[in-house]
């Protein structure tokens, strides 16, 4: 089982502020890596760097062994292999659910329209959204919008799925309908890197949990090790605060 993604000694700063520092991480195929940590610990920046939405200052990022941090790389070709889901959904408000999902398959992958629509409808049926195909995003609940956003990334058959706090903007009762999709994807063998504050969910899906603090991974290991028996003092402190907030 090879590594889909490998991050080697990544450094990233915004001006004076060092956001990622000597960060290394390997993501084997069919595994889910969960990033936890306080806001500002660098989780989102890390995901955006993998997606090349941000450029790194130093280090190397390998996708299937190819260095994608090379400035000469075709970023569009790299992003075709990556799916990304955002905290604020970012659906295209002027397009229907179906159009949101089929845009990239048609324009990027060059599929013909019927084929793209058919596979989009298959995905919508699978996740109980078939009746929403012709609706505009503003007619949907937050949970439905986020599920559509996930389907939109899946429609491109990504090699690796990046999920950036996908339930943070949701009502607590809507969180589960989104997380259950991710559980499904996990059991399908999708390779994922996800940032989340849902510790219970992290326990269920994570093959590896990484605790980020000031741009570095302070502790890593299985969910059992990191979330239930943390060694590092800062991890303990963070989990205690999460626990007090009732999110565990």
């Amino acid at each position: 089982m090879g590594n889909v993604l490998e991050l080697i000694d990544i450094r990233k700063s915004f001006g004076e502020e060092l956001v990622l520092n000597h960060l290394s991480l390997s993501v084997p195929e069919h595994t889910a890596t969960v990033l936890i940590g306080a806001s500002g610990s660098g989780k989102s920046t890390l995901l955006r760097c993998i997606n090349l939405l941000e450029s790194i200052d130093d280090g190397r990022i390998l996708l299937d062994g190819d260095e994608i941090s090379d400035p000469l790389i075709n970023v569009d070709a790299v992003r075709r292999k990556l799916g990304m889901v955002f905290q604020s959904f970012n659906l295209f408000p002027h397009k229907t659910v179906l159009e949101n999902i089929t845009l990239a398959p048609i324009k990027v992958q060059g599929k013909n329209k019927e084929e793209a629509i058919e596979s989009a409808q298959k995905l919508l049926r699978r996740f109980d959204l078939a009746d929403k195909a012709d609706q505009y995003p503003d007619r949907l609940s937050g949970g439905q919008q986020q599920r559509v956003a996930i389907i939109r990334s899946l429609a491109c058959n990504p090699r690796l799925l990046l999920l950036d706090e996908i339930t943070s903007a949701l009502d607590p009762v809507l969180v589960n309908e989104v997380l259950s999709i991710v559980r499904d994807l996990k059991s399908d063998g999708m390779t994922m890197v996800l940032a989340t504050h849902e510790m219970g969910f992290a326990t269920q899906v994570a093959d590896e949990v990484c605790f980020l603090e000031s741009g570095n991974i302070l502790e890593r290991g299985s969910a059992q090790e990191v979330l239930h028996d943390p060694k590092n003092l800062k991890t303990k402190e963070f989990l205690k605060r999460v626990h007090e907030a009732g999110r565990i």
Partner: protein
Amino acid sequence: MSERNNSAWSPSSREAERAIARKRISRKQGLIAATSSIFVIGTLIAIVLSSPGWEVVKKTFFNIDYGREVLPTVFAGLWINLQLTFIGGACIGVIALGLALMRTTKSPALTPFRFLATAYVDIFRGAPLILIILLVGFGVPALRLTGISSNVIFLGTVAVVLTYSAYVAEVIRSGILSIHPSQRAAARSLGLTSGQTMRYVVLPQAIRRVVPPLLNDFVSLLKDTGLVSILGVTDAVRAAQINSSRTFNYTPYVVAAVLFLLITIPMTRYTDRAIRQRTNAQNSEGSI
């Protein structure tokens, strides 16, 4: 679901009392509004009609028979203004979109065009339209270039298009810049190129957002086509001028003004409505 069913609802007796009270209040308010309007407007009309100069004013500006006589020529002139507006408007739309795209591009190969577009917008937005009309309308024929028409209608249109393209380009550009970067991030992370992102994601939303200000510019365009009359184009303004300079009566100008107003007032009302709908839609867009 039963609580959501509204058809089975009948108001309580308390609500019925309140409905009667509300109706009484609104009837009273309507009466006050009507009385005050009749009083104020009636007084204004009385003052105007009873003032010593009214007869002269009426004869010089509101001579109905003379107005009827010049109406066909002024109306024929207005037809020129309308043609200029629609043909010019189409050209402006295309050029302005090109300028806006050039100004927002980050592609290194297009860098010189970005500078040129910025310079163009600075110049034509900053110079008075009437100067551009004089420069193009009188200056270009003086060059005696072969192949360039010296038709004043054509040159007048070119001048208006040059200036308005700069205005409209800025409106479209502001629309492009108003689209949240997260939309671009979402499109790029799906693998769309920056060109595809602009074409399928940013521009459709941007244009929708700027329709109301564009309608405003369209109304201004119609009015400003009147300026080409200085080149000798017999538009509505010029037709009115010819007539009134012959008779020293200013009714033709009023006729021209009324004709313009008949078009522009409905258009501005429509624009206001479009802006209101746009604002409502944006407020309900939530986190998107």
